[in-house]
């Protein structure tokens, strides 16, 4: 999204009789509305947009248009490299210290940060097994499984209902997050809460890997108050299993299909959050938000 904004700013030219700042902000606002119409924004996208608007608003009035555009382009590049790419490297460096030889690591769904951690640990020569837990309707774990097996990791694949069965042999759980909220709640793919809960009951440590730009100042107690709904037909149609099509194309007013994309994991199920600011307990998230301030958090 940021790259797209970069290109839009490159191609932007201020119309006469309008100031760059206000007009550009209005343009960005219209782009954002278009994006929202396609799909509700994720929390990290919201943070990035707020950063960009902040940068635009802080441009000195005396700057010429080309200078302003160059500055903005540099700012966006810096954001991407520091907050996203470099942050991922730091997270991987921290997390790899938590993987020992002989570990059995459970991962859920498909998170880019977790995948990087596993591949890096494998390159370092650590001996461990991976359990990939997957769930409907997205079945994201299958693609991740293919990539991991392709790199030579020994993997076990199962579905989320069997997580109680498999948890007794697991030593660590690594989860990704879409965001971590200010009360320590982890907002992540639907099903993460179930995995964290079962891990907690089996006394297995749960580590969440989340870059700092995804933190948010709001709080949420359960998954219903604010969530995203996916396509209901994805629930009725089971891909690859033609014998399970009782509900395909069958509609009734008494039947609803609910396809939640995200859910909230309470902070007591999370042992540690690995961020580019270090490895912190979930209670430290509002501290990071406050100490590193809104301006400093986003450079």
């Amino acid at each position, binding site marked *: 999204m940021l790259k797209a904004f970069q290109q839009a700013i490159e191609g932007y030219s201020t119309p006469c009789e309008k100031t760059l700042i206000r007009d550009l902000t209005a343009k960005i606002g219209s782009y954002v509305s278009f994006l929202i119409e396609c799909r509700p924004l994720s929390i990290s996208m919201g943070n990035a947009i707020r950063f960009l608007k902040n940068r635009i608003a802080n441009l000195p009035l005396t700057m010429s248009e080309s200078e302003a555009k160059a500055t903005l382009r540099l700012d966006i590049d810096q954001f991407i490299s520091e907050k996203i790419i470099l942050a991922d490297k730091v997270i991987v460096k921290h997390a790899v210290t938590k993987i020992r030889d002989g570990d059995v690591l459970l991962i859920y769904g498909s998170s880019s940060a977790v995948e990087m951690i596993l591949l890096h640990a494998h390159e370092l020569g650590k001996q461990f097994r991976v359990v990939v837990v*997957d*769930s*409907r*309707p997205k079945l994201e774990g*299958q693609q991740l*499984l*293919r990539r991991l*097996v*392709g790199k*030579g*990791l*020994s*993997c*076990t*694949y*199962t*579905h*989320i*209902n*069997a*997580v*109680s*069965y*498999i948890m*007794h042999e697991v030593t660590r759980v690594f989860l990704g997050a879409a965001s971590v909220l200010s009360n320590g709640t982890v907002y992540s*793919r*639907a*099903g993460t*809460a*179930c995995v964290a*809960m*079962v891990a907690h*009951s089996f006394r297995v440590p749960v580590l969440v890997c989340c870059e700092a730009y995804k933190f948010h100042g709001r709080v949420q107690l*359960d*998954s*219903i108050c604010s*969530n995203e709904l996916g396509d209901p037909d994805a*629930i*009725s149609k*089971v891909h*690859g*299993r033609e014998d*399970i099509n*009782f*509900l395909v194309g*069958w509609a*009734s007013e*008494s*039947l*609803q*299909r*609910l*396809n*939640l994309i995200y*859910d*909230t994991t309470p902070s007591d199920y999370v042992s540690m959050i690995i961020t580019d600011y270090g490895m912190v307990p979930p209670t430290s998230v509002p501290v990071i938000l406050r100490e590193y301030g809104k301006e400093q958090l986003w450079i």
Partner: protein
Amino acid sequence: MPDVQALVNDFVLKLRRRKIEGSQATARQTAELLRSVISQQRVPYTNQAGALIDAIRAVGEQLIAANPVELAVGNIVRRVLHIIREEDLSLTTAAIAGLNLPSVSDDDDDDDGEREDQPVLSAASVAAAARSTLRPPSLQTLLEDRPDSAAIPHTSSSGGDSEGKSKSADKSSRSKKLKHDVIEAVNELIQDIATCHEQIAEQAVEHIHQNEVILTLGSSRTVLEFLCAAKEKKRSFRVFVAEGAPRYQGHLLAKELVTRGLQTTLITDSAVFAMISRVNMVIVGAHAVMANGSVIAPVGLNMVALAAQKHAVPFVVLAGSHKLCPLYPHNPEVLLNELRSPSELLDFGEFSDCLDFGTGSSSPLLHVVNPTFDCVPPKLVSLFITDTGGHNPSYMYRLIADYYSADDLVVQQKPVSVN
């Protein structure tokens, strides 16, 4: 009895190939098979109950070995054994009670007609019958390693011919009566198995109030009847059905509920924790209930039970009495579980490149795990609803005394020790 043996072999084959779906169907067919075994079994004049028990044990051992994970088979075998012991006991006590009456009427009325109506009983034969009734193992029988079900009647040697005629007469009538009683009781058992849904569904209205939200996972006929019974009594509620991968029976249940007019929402299993904060009660069926109150349930229900405990939502398990197993679960995830085909999770065609053996060690890189059952510990279950009413998990062991005898817990014949 080649006829019966063919039936038994047929049934064993069906069990081994997992052709019979569901514990109710399995229980019913097992009971019917055992009924045929009993009716075809020729019983000797002495110790007929022991002979019946040996026959049932022999058949039962084969059936249990065919599918050890289907606990309903073992339950019904043990129920029938218990029935045989009970009927034998009640007949003997009736005989002893009958003995007292002629002596009383003798003193009062010298009526020959009355005496002839009652079966000819002499004190010695009744005492012999009482001794041949199955008794708990004495130290002597244990030390001599004799199977306690076939307690050798001590009267066989001391009987003598003087009592021979009267004994044979009443023993044959007794044996016919025993078989007849046992078959009647087994018929009742079959009837109970068939009607367990109605009896459980009758209790629905006590538990479901107005404007409730109920969560269930997968599909169970007992749960369906339960919910529909509440709907008949004009309770308004809505149901969240979790689809129950990888069998996706939840889709079936959702369709059934909607055709019967209930407000249903279908969710994925991953959304269970998200939705449970808005749910009033979780109602599920079970595959089997163990003696300590833990539940062998379709996979995924342990997760649901944990979520329900976290949110203080009652977790109600519906189970017919044929599902109550007198055994305690030891390592149930492994011993009472079955792993199904991985093709339900991964398409073999798509993943054929990953299923090759790894380069370094020659073990495959990819394992796929697809268990069928989950074990839910008793502390997570709030209530069991059976056809005899609602019970706490800590009470389930008591119900075992109603249905099973302590001697029958191990169905295997004791091996003959060679020293």
